[in-house]
């Protein structure tokens, strides 16, 4: 079947079998930030933004995003405004692996799109669906909140 969508603001049309998941479509197109994780909707490694909302791409068929706008981490990776947020998340998990970072970035970006000044509780809620496979716990969000302030240009 034919599916038309936009990926990181580029219109694309693809021919896919009905069972193709969004994660497999995106990775086949070279969007490697979208990671295979638990494949069970639990970990958030495969998160992308669809029409402004963070969703799992492992539990979504490519056919379901017909006509929709999909943003992956590649869509804002080179934007220097977000570097401090990425660093804060890296510090938060305090590990070198970084596998979970794109998924976390995506869920915070979706939150910031809806509310540029989210309270800490909403940031926590956005991150609750992401799991660090190296078992870091996401407790102290002060650096992340500071990074969000920076993005808003408060510093």
């Amino acid at each position: 079947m034919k599916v038309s969508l936009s990926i990181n603001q580029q219109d694309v049309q693809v021919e896919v079998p009905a069972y193709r998941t969004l994660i497999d479509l995106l990775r086949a197109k070279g969007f490697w930030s979208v990671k295979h994780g638990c494949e069970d909707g639990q970990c958030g490694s495969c998160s992308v933004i669809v029409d402004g909302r963070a969703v799992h791409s492992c539990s979504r068929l490519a056919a379901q995003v017909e006509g929709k706008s999909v943003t992956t981490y590649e869509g804002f990776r080179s934007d220097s405004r977000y570097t401090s947020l990425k660093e804060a998340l890296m510090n938060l998990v305090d590990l070198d692996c970084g596998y979970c970072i794109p998924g976390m970035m995506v869920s915070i970006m979706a939150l910031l799109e809806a509310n540029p000044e989210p309270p800490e509780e909403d940031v926590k809620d956005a991150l609750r669906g992401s799991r660090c496979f190296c078992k870091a716990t996401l407790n102290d969000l002060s650096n992340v909140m500071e990074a969000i302030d920076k993005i808003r240009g408060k510093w």
Partner: protein
Amino acid sequence: MLSNLKGYYRPQSIPSALALLEKNSGSILVLAGGTKLILNENNIVKELVDITSLGLDYIKEGSGEIRIGATTPIQQIVENRILGNAAGGIISRAAHLTSHSIMVRNTSTVGGELVTSGPLSLFYCTMLVLQAQVRIAGGEEFALAMNVFLDKKGLGGGLLIEVVIPKLPAHSYAAVAPILSDMDRPIICAAGRVTFKKGLCQKAKLAITGTPRVPQRLHRIEEFLEGKPLDGSSIADAMEMAEAVYEPISDSFASEEYRKAVAPSLIKRVLYDCLEQAQDMSGTSE
């Protein structure tokens, strides 16, 4: 994974969705958010009918009720102002507790959540005490009270199209009391609503999760409370009754014994919460 999936349809009207479902029954399924369907191993499903273009994504407030379309994402219920203010906020709270992950809540739908309800479904439990109805389309359109739907007899091959939640009568207060696992999953939860008249409990509706198949109403406690003042003594009696009438299941989240042991305090929390709301509003007397 739906490894044998060959066909995918996105009808634009309820009659066309029903026609597709009827024609190919057996190997065709309704697809809403897909959070349950797509991740489950299923080799039988060959075709899907995506119902997200049927115009069923809405939350509408009428004079006596709130209507939620079947494909409304759960997160929209969490965020919706009307629902946040209705029934002491328990609808939004229950929606939030359907999953710890906002990614799941952004995708899963009200219809999918209700159709897949199981023993621990807090959202279902909440709808029970609010006496919600579900509207089903299948041949003719009809409405089912939640406790009928509870038996899952009603859906047949039809489509759940809407949930209708009556607004609470005056002097009514609602509350939920969950116990959460470390992954924020409600392993047992009680929900309730109380209507006060002249300082007495005029009507009570109580339900609890952790029962076989789906959450159950606690009719005996409701009947016991009606016509009595809601106070320390009647609440203590209600707790005692909860211990006697609640017949929970054991599962990987909690044992039957644990659920039985904590159920009375959840009933207590719900009733005190309703009472405190009533006192805050000075609503115990008419």
